[in-house]
Structure formats: structure tokens, C-alpha cells
């Protein structure tokens, strides 16, 4: 049979493509919610990448523009010009030779003095003896002549005459005779020989001692290593640390570090106001000014000197306000940095810290070279300081730039935030991708016959796959575009505010950041693609016939699970549960994800507030005063009349590791201390604080090794026990053991600790005072930087929980729509139906919450530990029972809201649905 003449049409575009849009419009609530979540997250992460990159770029630019130091060192006193010049050469001084020469010179003087004294004594004795002999002889001759003349003198008269003659002779001749004799003796061979012999002996002793000492010194500092000199330029960067007093705020108690006018190194960027022009003007750090609410025009007191604040600035060497590099956390709340004129600097009545900044004359190529150069330079610094003509010159501090937290912390933290936000986005995208995958799987079941028909008609598996994956992928693209636009506009400012609220940063200019686009578009797209592909492709591999027969299960359960003889509703609910297990697993994953976020949002403020409130109780003494010297100007030991005060010793060692070198406070405690109650301690054993044990997993009986910071000297101890103190990473031992270990005098000590504030020790003798405020400053700073955001984050978590629960319960209800409709036809009421279909979900949410809370807590605690391992000090992640209750209630409240929506959804399912064809 011939076909009739037929008119051909144009091949249309793929109608399934149009259907993608229709699907999205039909199910707009689901897509909108997912889109909002993605837009907000992508926007935030994109904003974070843009801001971070731009800020890091401006920080990086400021290094050159503001001539940031390559490091600094602090000396015990001002170094003389020659020493500074010697340090600048970067050459290691020949310590033994200089010491030997000095010792020889000293020895020569002493030997000569000793020999001269011995010779003089000898000469004097001999001269005196000679005069006595001569006098006696002269007197005897006189008496013989007198006897011949008949005048015999008695023995007493003779003695008297000799004495008188001796006195006269001594007065007239002794000095000259001694002088002549001495001249004679000094010229004699004996004298030269005696001097040479004595010098030889002395040199021998000196050589022996210097060789011994140098070997020890060389071992300690690793001075034998040969390396090229590291020439540097050294700049005076002196400062004074003193109290900062705000006349406008009497409760405020802070400290300020004031630098004299900077012109060559570590310059500043004035963000508001102007530079100081006279001795009563000052500029201070912008971040601290914000925190302490100091405005331009305000007056502050630095110790006893009043200054008018004329500007707020970013100082090149303080992007994070670390008072000391060993502090666990920077402190922009109570620590300030300022700069005044030279005259202004002189007005401040506080000790000058002789801080010197340096820059390498040949800048290092990379971080590795920088580290190596800094190590070599330190050796040069140590030796040049040792051989300095300035007596007793000591290095008090040495901080190369790469290890300076004030320079690197903000930079590293900004980098870490970026990575963290990225991970958060990927987890959220993965969770959403799984939700899509589950939803698509459910759609595949629902549209099984249509798919079968299309496949039977010739649609390929790839075409079907592309169609079903189009919506989620399209959504990611849309969300990415909107998210990135918001990232560059709205979120960028939010993130910038967040950073300006934490760090002292220079002005930044937003930069086009391709990384933001890749991280927030390409990676989520790929994640969505891979996860959906993995889940959908399995089903789409089935034959068209299986789709036509609604037979999508790879392994069909042969028999229904036998249930106990429960009531009808219980069995019905159990069946619903069994039928929806994959969806409930997804629900569990979703709840766990939300719980992890909530663990952070609830746990972080809880942890901080726990430490803020309990740090005072944790401290073993209210006040710890570390003295700069234990003797006053008159050589008397510095004491305090405070009856509660107790001596203690303290030093700082390092626990070295690849990840982070931890500063460990080593305490020497008096026996029977009322503040630190140690038990008996075996030789070579110490107690470690609970913070130390928790951070590094130390147990009783373990061995720990700590090292001197600037020396190659290690100490290894056995852990006697864990001392219940969480305030810091510390080691405790008896003060006698301490003094012996650290080669100090038996009665040596470092300071006093007391339960009352020690106020009667002159400030000039105090090197450092540790109060509860110092201990909580980490928690205070973290609370200030992140606390407020965490409250917002809790609301965000609530919304995310609600959206995820909405999406997941929607899938479960949609999957059961026909059954629900049929139940309605059979006469079940909406309440009964809801109890059948919602109750299993409620139970799953309820139990998932408990499990997820535990998992969230564990993951967060681990994550927290990871953060703390890269920081000095320790405080563990704390989540009190009230925190868990809060977490539980947040998610359950979200679920309660969704249940109302679900109930409404069930009520709206029409009865006719069950009677319609399956399409």
C-alpha cells in the first residue's frame, strides 16, 4: 500500500526542555526554597571569597607600601652603635675568640697586678730588711766607739737607738730604695719569667673554660652550622607599654603600646583623622578605637600622660592586636597600639622597650627561604649580642615576621574562613543534591509509565537523564548567578564588616575574583551533577518495559515483612515507615547536617560563656605577679607583706611539633603550696595541667619533651599525674626541682601568687601580671568577634532546618499521595491520615535529632580541637545540657512548623486522585 501524499512539518525543539521550565514552575515552592538556600549560601561564600581575596591583596600590598618589617627583636637595653652595625652585617661573631681575647686581656691585667704586688711585697721586705741591717750595723759601730770612749750603753738603750735610727732611715731612704729596687726587679729576668709563667697558667685555665663553655653554647644555639651572612637593616622601633585610661569610661581597664613617630619602618595608614603633630597628640589603632568607643577628639591617658586622639590608623605590624606573640589570642578589646611624636613619647613615664625592627637586605624568595634566613639571622643576633661591648646585653624577644601572630593571624584566619565557608557550601550543595536525587527518584517512580512510553518510542537513556538532571543543574546555575551578583554587592559588605569588626585591616578595593566564581558555580554544579547522575542513572538503566510495568526496584522484596500483632494503626504506620526508609535516611542526613551547623551556632557561644564565667574559678590564684628582678636597687629581695602571697617560679618552654610550636608555662611551686596542691613528685617527673593533657592526649606515666625557645636544649620528663587546671597549657614541679633543672640558685624565684591582688610591689619591678581578665581575654575576644553572628546563625539554622524538613517531608507525602487519597475515599479522616503518615516522620525526626546531636557534638568537638591545635593555649569544646536542649528545640520547633504545613498538604490531597490514571 502506498502512503498518501502527506505534508511534512518542521522538527520541533526538544519539548522535554520546555517541560523543565514547566516542572520548575509547577513545583515552584520546592525550587524556590532550594534556590533561596543556594543563593544565600553561594552569595555569602562568594562575598567571602571576593572580600577575602581583596583584603588579602590589600594586606599584601601594604607590606611593601607600608614597609613592613621582616621581623623584630627586643634587647634588654639600648644597643651601642657598633653592636647594631655588627648585627646588620648578619655575620656570626667568633664568640670564643672575642671571649678569649677579653679574658686574656683581663687575665693579663690581673696577672700583672698579682706579679707586681708579689714583687713589690718582696722588694719592700728586702729593702726594709736591708735598712734594718744597715741601721743596726751603724748603731753598733757607734756604740763600739762610745764604749771605747767609756760610755757603755745598756741593751735597752741600744734597742731604742736602733729603732730611732731605723725610723729615720726608713723615712729618708725607704721609698727611694723601694722604687730603685722595684725598677731593678722589673727589669730582671726573674720578673719576666714569673709573669710569663703566670700568664701561661692563666691562659691555660681560660682556654679550658672557654672551650668547655663554647661547646655547650654551640650545642645550644647550633652555632657550628656554616651559612652565608644574612645582612639586614636594623631600625629602632622603641615602644612603651603602659595603662590606657579613658577619662570618659572609668570602668575601662586596658593597656596601650605607644611607639615613637615612625618614618622608616612599619608605617601606618591613617583611616580617619591625621597624624600627630605635637607632643600631646596621638593616633591609635582603628579596631581598638571602635571597640573601646574612642573617637577622634577624645582624650586618653597613657600612664600619666594625656593625649588627644587625632586619628585612627592601621599599623603595618598589627593586623591583629597581639600584645605578646605567645598570647593565645589577640585582644582588640583591652590592648591598644598608638603612635605619638618623639616629644610625646618622652612624656610617657614608663620603661622603654628596646625593640628593633629589621628588614633583610635581600628579600627571601619564599616562606621556606624566609624561615631559613630568620634562623641564620638569629644566630648572628645571638652571637653579636653576646660579644657586644654593651655589658649584659640580652635578647628578650625575637620574632621573625612569618612567626609573628600580629602579622600573620588575620591573614591565616581570613584564608581559613574562606576554606571553611567553601566546605559549608559543598556540604549544603551535597545535601541539596541528595534531596534532588531522592525527589527525582520519587518522580521517576511516579512517571514510570510515561518514561516507559517515551523510551519505547525511541527516547534514549541519555535524553531522559539530561531531562531529569536539567532542573537541579539549571537551579544551581540560576542560584550561582544571583548568588554571585549578591556576593559582589550585598554579602561583600557584610563579610567586610565582619572582618573590620575583628581585625585591624587596611582599606580594601574589591577585586574580580575568578576563584569565587569557580568555587561557587563550577564546584556546586559538578557536585549536583555527580550526585544526581549517580542516583538517577541507576534507575534509568532499567528497560522501558520495566518502566511501563512500574517495576523500578532492582531487587523486589519477595515477601512483605511480617509484623507483630500490633494494632492496625501501629502496623499501618510501620508499613509507611518501611516503605519510606530511603527517604528517612535522607531525612536523617539532613537533620545531621543541620545539627552540625546548630552545634556550631549554639556550642561556640556556650563554650565561650563557659570559659568566661568559670575561668576565675579555674585560676589557682587571683593574681600572679612575675618580677623583672627579684632584688631591688639596694640588693634586697623584693617581698610583699601580703600574707596570702606565695613565691613561685615560672619559665616558658616550647612543645615543638610540625603543626604548631606551643608555648608551655613551666611552674616551680613551693612545697605545701596553698594554691597549687601537688602531691609528691619523683625525680624527673612533673605534673601537667588538664589543658595540656586534653590538648595533646597526655596520660599519667607518659613522657613529655619540651625545648628552650632560642636554644637547642631539650627537657624530658615523665608525667607524674594530671593537675586539674584548665586555664593554660602548663607543667608543674617543685620549686627546688625547678631551680635545679634550670640551673638557678636554690632560693631563686620568679614572682608571687596570691588570692588577693598584690598592690605593694613597685611597678618597675613587675614584668608581667596575670589576672583573671588576662585569662578570659581569648574567650572575650572570640565572643566579641563571633558571638553576635552566632545568634544570627542560630536563626539561619532554624530556617535551614525548616526548609530541609519541608523538602524531605514533601517528598514522603507526595510519594504517598495516592494512598492518602485512597484512605480518604475509604473514609479515613484527615487527622487519622496525618497520624499514619506524619507520625512515623515525627518519630524519625525525634530519634534522628538525638543521634544527630551526638554526631554534631562529636564532629564539632573534633573540628574545634583541630582549630585549637593550631593556636597557643587550649579550651575544649563545651556544650552543657542546656545547649543540647536548645539544639533539640530549635530543630523540633522547625519540624513543628513544617508539620502544620504537611497537615495542610494532606488535607488538600483530593479524593479523585486515587481514581485517576497513573500519569
Amino acid at each position: 500500500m502506498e502512503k498518501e501524499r502527506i505534508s511534512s512539518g518542521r522538527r520541533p525543539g526538544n519539548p522535554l526542555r520546555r517541560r523543565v521550565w514547566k516542572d520548575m514552575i509547577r513545583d515552584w515552592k520546592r525550587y524556590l526554597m532550594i534556590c533561596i538556600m543556594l543563593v544565600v549560601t553561594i552569595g555569602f561564600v562568594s562575598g567571602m571569597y571576593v572580600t577575602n581575596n581583596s583584603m588579602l591583596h590589600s594586606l599584601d600590598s601594604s607590606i611593601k607600601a607600608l614597609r613592613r618589617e621582616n621581623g623584630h627583636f627586643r634587647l634588654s637595653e639600648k644597643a651601642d652603635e657598633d653592636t647594631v652595625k655588627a648585627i646588620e652585617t648578619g655575620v656570626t661573631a667568633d664568640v670564643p675568640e672575642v671571649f678569649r681575647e677579653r679574658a686574656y686581656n683581663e687575665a693579663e691585667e690581673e696577672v700583672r697586678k698579682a706579679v707586681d704586688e708579689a714583687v713589690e711585697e718582696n722588694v719592700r721586705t728586702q729593702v726594709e730588711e736591708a735598712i734594718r741591717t744597715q741601721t743596726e750595723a751603724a748603731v753598733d759601730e757607734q756604740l763600739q766607739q762610745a764604749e771605747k770612749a767609756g760610755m757603755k750603753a745598756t741593751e735597752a738603750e741600744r734597742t731604742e737607738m736602733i729603732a730611732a735610727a731605723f725610723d729615720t732611715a726608713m723615712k729618708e731612704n725607704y721609698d727611694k730604695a723601694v722604687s730603685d729596687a722595684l725598677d731593678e726587679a722589673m727589669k730582671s729576668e726573674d720578673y719576666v719569667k714569673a709573669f710569663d709563667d703566670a700568664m701561661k697558667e692563666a691562659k691555660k685555665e681560660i682556654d679550658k673554660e672557654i672551650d668547655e663553655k663554647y661547646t655547650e653554647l654551640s650545642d645550644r644555639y647550633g652555632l657550628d652550622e656554616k651559612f652565608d651572612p644574612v645582612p639586614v637593616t636594623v631600625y629602632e622601633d622603641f615602644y612603651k607599654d603602659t595603662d590606657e585610661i579613658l577619662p570618659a569610661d572609668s570602668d575601662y581597664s586596658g593597656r596601650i603600646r605607644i611607639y615613637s613617630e615612625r618614618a622608616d619602618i612599619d608605617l601606618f595608614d591613617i583611616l580617619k583623622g591625621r597624624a600627630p603633630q605635637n607632643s600631646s597628640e596621638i593616633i591609635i589603632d582603628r579596631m581598638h578605637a571602635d571597640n573601646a568607643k574612642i573617637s577622634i577628639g577624645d582624650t586618653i591617658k597613657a600612664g600619666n600622660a594625656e593625649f588627644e586622639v587625632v586619628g585612627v590608623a592601621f599599623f603595618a605590624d598589627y593586623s591583629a592586636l597581639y600584645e605578646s606573640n605567645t598570647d593565645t589570642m589577640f585582644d582588640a578589646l583591652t590592648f591598644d597600639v598608638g603612635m605619638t611624636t618623639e616629644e610625646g613619647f618622652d612624656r610617657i613615664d614608663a620603661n622603654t622597650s628596646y625593640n628593633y625592627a629589621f628588614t633583610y637586605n635581600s628579600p627571601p624568595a619564599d616562606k621556606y627561604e624566609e624561615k631559613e634566613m630568620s634562623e641564620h639571622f638569629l644566630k648572628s643576633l645571638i652571637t653579636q649580642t653576646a660579644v657586644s661591648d654593651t655589658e649584659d646585653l640580652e635578647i628578650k624577644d625575637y620574632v621573625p615576621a612569618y612567626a609573628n601572630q600580629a602579622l600573620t593571624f588575620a591573614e591565616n584566619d581570613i584564608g581559613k574562613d574562606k576554606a571553611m565557608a567553601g566546605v559549608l557550601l559543598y556540604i549544603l550543595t551535597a545535601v541539596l543534591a541528595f534531596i534532588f536525587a531522592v525527589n527525582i527518584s520519587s518522580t521517576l517512580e511516579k512517571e514510570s509509565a510515561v518514561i516507559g512510553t517515551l523510551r519505547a518510542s525511541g527516547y534514549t537513556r541519555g535524553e531522559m537523564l539530561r531531562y531529569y538532571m536539567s532542573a537541579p543543574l539549571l537551579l544551581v546555575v540560576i542560584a550561582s548567578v544571583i548568588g554571585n551578583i549578591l556576593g559582589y554587592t550585598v554579602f561583600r559588605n557584610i563579610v567586610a564588616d565582619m572582618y573590620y569588626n575583628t581585625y585591624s585591616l587596611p582599606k580594601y578595593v574589591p577585586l574580580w575574583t575568578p576563584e569565587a566564581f569557580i568555587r561557587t558555580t563550577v564546584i556546586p554544579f559538578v557536585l549536583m551533577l555527580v550526585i544526581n547522575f549517580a542516583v538517577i542513572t541507576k534507575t534509568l538503566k532499567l528497560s522501558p518495559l520495566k518502566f511501563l510495568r512500574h517495576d523500578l526496584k532492582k531487587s523486589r522484596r519477595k515477601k512483605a515483612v511480617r509484623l507483630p500483632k500490633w494494632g492496625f494503626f501501629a502496623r499501618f504506620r510501620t508499613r509507611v515507615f518501611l516503605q519510606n526508609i530511603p527517604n528517612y535516611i535522607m531525612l536523617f542526613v539532613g537533620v545531621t547536617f543541620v545539627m552540625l551547623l546548630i552545634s556550631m551556632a549554639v556550642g561556640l557561644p556556650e563554650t565561650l560563656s563557659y570559659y568566661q564565667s568559670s575561668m576565675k574559678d579555674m585560676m589557682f590564684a587571683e593574681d600572679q605577679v612575675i618580677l623583672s628582678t627579684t632584688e631591688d636597687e639596694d640588693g634586697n629581695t623584693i617581698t610583699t607583706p601580703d600574707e596570702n602571697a606565695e613565691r613561685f617560679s615560672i619559665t616558658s618552654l616550647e612543645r615543638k611539633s610540625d603543626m604548631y610550636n606551643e608555648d608551655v608555662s613551666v611552674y616551680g611551686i613551693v612545697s605545701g603550696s596553698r594554691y597549687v596542691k601537688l602531691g609528691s613528685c619523683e625525680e624527673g617527673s612533673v605534673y601537667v595541667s588538664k589543658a595540656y593533657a586534653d590538648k595533646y592526649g597526655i596520660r599519667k606515666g607518659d613522657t613529655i619533651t619540651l625545648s628552650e625557645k632560642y636554644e637547642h636544649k631539650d627537657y624530658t620528663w615523665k608525667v607524674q599525674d594530671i593537675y586539674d587546671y584548665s586555664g593554660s597549657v602548663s607543667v608543674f614541679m617543685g620549686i627546688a626541682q625547678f631551680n635545679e633543672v634550670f640551673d638557678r640558685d636554690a632560693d631563686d624565684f620568679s614572682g608571687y601568687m596570691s588570692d588577693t591582688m598584690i598592690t605593694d610591689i613597685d611597678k618597675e619591678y613587675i614584668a608581667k601580671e596575670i589576672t583573671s581578665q588576662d585569662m578570659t581575654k581569648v574567650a572575650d575576644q572570640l565572643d566579641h568577634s563571633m558571638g553576635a553572628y552566632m545568634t544570627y546563625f542560630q536563626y539561619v539554622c532554624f530556617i535551614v532546618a525548616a526548609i530541609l524538613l519541608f523538602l524531605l517531608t514533601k517528598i514522603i507525602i507526595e510519594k504517598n499521595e495516592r494512598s492518602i487519597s485512597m484512605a480518604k475515599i475509604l473514609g479515613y479522616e484527615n487527622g487519622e491520615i496525618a497520624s499514619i503518615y506524619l507520625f512515623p516522620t515525627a518519630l524519625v525526626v525525634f530519634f534522628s535529632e538525638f543521634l544527630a546531636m551526638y554526631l554534631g557534638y562529636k564532629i564539632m568537638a573534633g573540628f574545634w580541637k583541630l582549630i585549637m591545635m593550631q593556636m597557643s593555649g587550649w579550651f575544649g569544646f563545651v556544650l552543657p545540657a542546656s545547649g543540647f536542649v536548645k539544639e533539640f528545640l530549635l530543630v523540633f520547633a522547625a519540624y513543628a512548623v513544617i508539620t502544620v504545613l504537611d497537615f495542610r498538604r494532606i488535607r488538600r490531597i483530593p479524593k479523585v486522585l486515587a481514581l485517576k490514571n497513573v500519569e
Partner: protein
Amino acid sequence: MSNEEKMFLSVSGLKKSFGSGETRQEVLRGLDFTVAKGEFCVLLGPSGSGKSTLLNILGGIDSADEGEIVINGDKLAEMNEKSLTRYRRKHLGYVFQMYNLIPNLNVKENIETGAYLSDNPLDIDELLKILGLYEHRHKLPNQLSGGQQQRVSIGRAIVKNPDILLCDEPTGALDYKTSKEILRLIEEVNQKYGNTIIMVTHNEAIKQMADHIIKLRDGMIRHDIINTEKLSAAEIEW
């Protein structure tokens, strides 16, 4: 009719069984028949006679255990999954008892899902008129009656102008009047476009409008008849 036309579709020694061991059930027990090009062939038989299975194997969505099917010179058994899909895409149209339309595509768009598969589809508007759906072209499937929905599904199958139109109980879910309308439409399509039509039905009356009747029972061909007294769809009654 040339030999080639006569031998457009040939089936020989076709066997198919389901299950294994004791539960093994032979559904097709060695079928041999041919269908000519443009022929309207009806596969008739009671439930469980194997007619739907045979149709699925002819349509390449199920496979035979034994035997050979040659369509227009191509052996189905030699085709892999990809070739079978291409074969369905280019040569076959499917109409099922359930219409299986895409619920959120309108009438025209549902038909376009078929047209998209062909390089040379029929003119859709013209087809819509033939199907009597032109007025309803913007409606969604749930706004149509069962008969209208089946028309759409027929439209979707024939719009790509397939060589063979496979219909599996196309009137099974329809009332008498609507069934006759659908049969008339299939007849019209056959005459107008010259497609080979293989229709599965258990309705004995329908055989009267076929060129070729194959009766199946228990997986075997009981009768293979060329109908010389063919009636039009309008004339048949049941």
C-alpha cells in the same frame, strides 16, 4: 503487493518464557508469521495468550529466548541496546491502553515529544486536525476525556511517521463509542499514511477491520488469516 512488501516483517521460531525451574512458564512457544508493509494486522487472543509479550518483543522493548525477527531486512536479535533504541526511534510508534501522556505538557507539546524523534515528522497542525484535537491543542491532558487523551497518544506515536505502529489494547480502557472513534482514527491513519499497524486486542469484533488476523492461544498461533472481507471501523459492532 511485491514480495518485499509481503516480507516486511517476518517472525520465525519465536519463543519466550518467564521464570525458571518449576515456576517456568512458556509464554510464546515458537511463532512463525509474516506481516506485509502497510498491513493492518490484529493479534487476537484471550488474556495470557502471549499477544502483549509478542508485541513488546516486536517493539524491541523485550527480548525473545529463541527465534528470529526480521524487520525490513534488519534482524532484531543482532541489535544492541543502542541500535534497538535507534530502531524504535526511527521506525516504531507505540500506543498503549493507558495513554501515558506527560501531565504538564499540553496536547500539542505531547505530540511534539513524538515529532522531536523524527527527522521528517508530519505537520503537527494538520495532524491535530485529523485527530480532531486542533481546538484542544493548548489543553493539558487532565482537561481531556479518555478518548481525547488516547487520540493524543496516537498522535504522539504517528507524528514521526513510523513504519510500524504498535498498539497494545488501545481501546481497552474506553467505552464503545469512544473505542469506535479511536479505531476509525487508526484506520484513517493506516490509509492516509500507509503505516504498518500491529494491534493487540482481545476484542473479537476488531478483527473484521484488519487485513491480517493472527489468533493466539497459550503462546501458539491458532489461526493466521488474511482477511479478504475487510469491514470499515464504522461498520463493525460488538
